[in-house]
């Protein structure tokens, strides 16, 4: 694959012009993994045989009826290892699920497969999607294609790195508190978290059920829209999935931002934001103005408590969601002489420190006597956070801000959990309110990518993509490729 064939749109065109076959694209993607993944560690499982079969089927489909085939037909994709695929080992980056092979496929992945997608493999992530650097993976951290000594962000770091390295045109990740947008920012690609409930969670190994959302990484906003149009929409297997039809994001993609009002949340430009990141984001705002959008400062006063609220709700839900990893029916088990010992030793060996920390936090917050002070209070603050967004969105069409306060850092540089949690200050409130958010590249600091985040009201995913597309098309940041891509090209 060459750098000129990095996007879904380009690959779809090349497939239809017979310039390349799906089998060749799959071969190139697999060769890329072969060449780079020993350093990048973006993949936990490579599904080469299945990929070649899917590619061959896609070629047949394209030959028979290329015109009506999905733009995703024959295009290779990488899937975060929290999404189940029938017959493919799925570990969620955890030792406790080592060897677990689900007998079902996540709805989002199934919709890609139905469209003719070619799954190259399962990507590395922080254990059970808990982390902001990929360093919590039980299978070693993934590297950042811009500098493999640096983290790709997390938790969907492998999915971000797989795209940023030029190996695949797109990938799926999951975003509970920024796990798509933050690694997209750190790896210099587009990462889209749809409105909560827009993409089915069926088959997504749950971290925090009320916050989790599946979404794409890609080199362009158009590709994100294409993937979203395929995976979005109601699923009877997920009772929390939105019943209303999805507005076609491609229809209005190039409608521009002229006359649109953009809110700049002042709380998202606090002391934690690196000066370089601030500069790049401010430059991006000038671009928006040049496109006819207007900017105004807005306030989201609960931003500082949103982080704490998240670190009560998400661990509470995860403490319960992870209870099924008990060694009884699947995954890792340590045999012991009593049931309690079996539970304790299985979970002690199976879970890593960050997961254990969150299970303990969650159990504490839900304990009798603490429930009102923590969990219940957190739910109230969550409502408040959502109301503040609603109120701001009566005045503006979308919000613009940094995705991450910092650029990619070196592995091991942030060992303090609280410092790590602070990476997600601008992404977490979006999950608490169930809003759609997207990160697009907006420049570099010391040759490391900076991400620009747009946020839109609930269910206005199409508007969000249109805004991000307008910005992206007015700049060239999305066309700058990581050194790894250049090496392959």
């Amino acid at each position: 694959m060459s750098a000129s064939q990095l996007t879904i749109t380009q690959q779809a065109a090349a497939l239809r012009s017979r310039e390349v076959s799906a089998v060749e694209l799959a071969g190139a993607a697999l060769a890329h993994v072969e060449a780079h993944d020993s350093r990048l560690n973006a993949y936990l499982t490579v599904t080469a045989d299945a990929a070649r079969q899917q590619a061959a089927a896609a070629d047949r489909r394209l030959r028979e009826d290329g015109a009506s085939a999905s733009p995703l037909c024959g295009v290779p994709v990488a899937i975060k290892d929290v999404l189940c695929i029938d017959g493919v080992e799925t570990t969620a980056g955890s030792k406790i699920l080592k060897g677990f092979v689900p007998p079902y496929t996540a709805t989002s992945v199934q919709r890609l497969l139905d469209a003719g997608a070619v799954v190259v493999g399962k990507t590395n992530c922080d254990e059970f999607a808990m982390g902001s650097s990929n360093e919590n993976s039980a299978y070693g951290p993934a590297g950042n294609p811009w500098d493999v000594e640096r983290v790709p962000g997390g938790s969907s770091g492998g999915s971000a790195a797989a795209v940023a390295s030029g190996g695949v045109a797109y990938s799926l990740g999951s975003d509970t508190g920024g796990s798509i947008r933050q690694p997209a920012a750190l790896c210099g690609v587009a990462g889209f978290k749809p409105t909560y409930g827009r993409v089915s969670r069926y088959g997504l190994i749950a971290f925090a059920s009320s916050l989790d959302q599946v979404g794409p990484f890609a080199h362009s906003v158009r590709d994100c829209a294409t993937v979203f149009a395929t995976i979005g929409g109601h699923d009877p297997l997920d009772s929390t999935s939105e019943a209303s039809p999805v507005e076609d994001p491609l229809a209005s993609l190039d409608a521009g931002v002229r006359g649109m009002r953009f809110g700049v949340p002042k709380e998202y430009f606090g002391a934690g934001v690196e000066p370089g990141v601030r500069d790049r984001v401010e430059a991006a705002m000038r671009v928006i103005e040049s496109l006819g959008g207007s900017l105004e400062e807005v306030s989201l006063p609960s931003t500082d408590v949103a982080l704490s609220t998240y670190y009560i709700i998400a661990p509470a839900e995860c403490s319960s969601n992870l209870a099924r990893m008990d060694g009884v029916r699947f995954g890792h088990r340590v045999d012991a002489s009593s049931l309690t010992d079996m539970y304790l030793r299985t979970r002690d060996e199976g879970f890593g420190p960050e997961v254990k920390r969150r299970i303990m936090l969650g159990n504490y917050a839900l304990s009798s006597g603490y429930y009102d002070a923590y969990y219940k209070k957190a739910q109230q603050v969550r409502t408040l956070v959502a109301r503040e967004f609603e109120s701001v969105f009566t005045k503006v069409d979308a919000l613009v801000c940094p995705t991450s306060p910092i650029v990619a850092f070196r592995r091991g540089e942030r060992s303090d959990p609280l410092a790590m949690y602070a990476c997600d200050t601008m992404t977490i409130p979006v999950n608490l309110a169930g809003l759609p958010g997207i990160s697009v590249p907006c420049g570099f600091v010391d040759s490391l990518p900076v991400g620009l985040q747009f946020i839109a009201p609930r269910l206005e995913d199409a508007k969000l993509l249109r805004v991000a597309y307008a910005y992206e098309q007015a700049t060239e940041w999305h066309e700058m490729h990581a050194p790894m891509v250049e090496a392959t090209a």
Partner: protein
Amino acid sequence: MIQVEEQLDAVLARYQAVIGLEVHAQLLTRSKMFCACSAGYHDAPPNSHTCPVCLALPGVLPVINRQAVEYTILTALALDCEIPEFSKFDRKNYFYPDLPKGYQISQFDLPLSLNGHLDVLVGDEVVRAGITRVHLEEDTGTMHHAGDVLQSATSSVVNLNRCGVPLMEIVGEPDLHTPEQAREYLQRLRQVLVYIGVNDGNLERGSFRCDANVSLQQPGALGFGTKVEVKNMNSFRAVQKALESEILRQADMLDRGERIVQETRGWVEAHGTTISQRSKEGASDYKYFPEPDLPPMHITRDMVERIRAELPELPEAKRRRFETQYGLSAYEASVVTQTQDDAGTFETLASGVDAKIAVNWFMGDVARLANITGVKLQDSGLGVKGLVALLKLVAAGTINGSIAKGLLDELYATGGDAVQLVQERGLGQVSDAGELGTILDEVIASNPNAVNDFRGGKEAALQSLMGQVMKATRGRADAKLVNTLLRERLG
């Protein structure tokens, strides 16, 4: 037994027993509570009725069984509960191998229904027992241990066929004061659930299960005494026995000045006592919180009214109607309305013949035959319509009662047409005074001793003479007429 009853009466004269019952009833839905697996788990090979959802594999999600929600609302309406507009599911978190998710999806603070009641007839007193709430949850799997209990078992196996079967919990107020009231309450509740078709009422197989909370209140004391939870009672008799035993045990402790420990005790049928299972002092913290995988339920008033319209006539209303409409005694009405089936059978009988005759036959010979053969009238060769035809022959005087009984026994097993048989076999009643007169004269002439005895005041001698007449008519004589004619002739 008499000893226990006397002891109990003595104790209940000194202490007020306070009993609250919690019933778990499996719903007769086709599929499980949150997945498409069959809910009929009995007799299926272990773990054959399972899927990724009820096995709690990572990544799967529950989907609410609408029928189970409707059955719960139907039950709640039958128990006069309020149905709030909003309800939700919560997670009850604890670890056990028969609970694969590590939490049970149940309802905590917003159950489907609240504040109902059930009227229970105990002796001739109506006891109104409050229903705190009826909520919906899912059943657990089952475990088999090599050894007595899990803790000392050398190995254990889990069967998840039952896991996820819809389970309704009916929490009663502590309004019951004797073991007898408790038993009657459970029987009445079971009857209602079976009547409305939501539960099969099978205690032995555990589709209808009961736990009891029991405390004793000292005279003049404020508030309730320390509550003990009693489990493992799988028959109505066991409930009564367990409660009797537990009340006596608590009274004995209180009499000796000991403190009742708040705990869970299991009824051991073989020993006739309850034994301590676990102390509540180290009670589990279930860390309830709203189930994030299921949105809250909005129960519209339209839905409630639609379900209310499906409520059949309940046993209590039917019993009262049978008393007034058919002139049955309270006892007769309650026997006849025991099940929907029985009540239906009775009404069919009563539509053909006099209700009094219908109830006598239904509760007498028909009940006897059903008992002996294990076949209900409606499933017998005779059938309900056949019995109506037979009873019509009696009512019309075509055959007499004893001929009819003989025919009932025969037709119950083999089936056949009563009218035709009576004709074929010449079983028609002899009620012609002239024809009977000749036979009577012969009987009087050939039994001088009996005649003398009767004239001498021995009433029993008349029976012997009547027997002779019946013999001569092969049982077909109209007994009433024979009695009158004999008295005339011997008077």
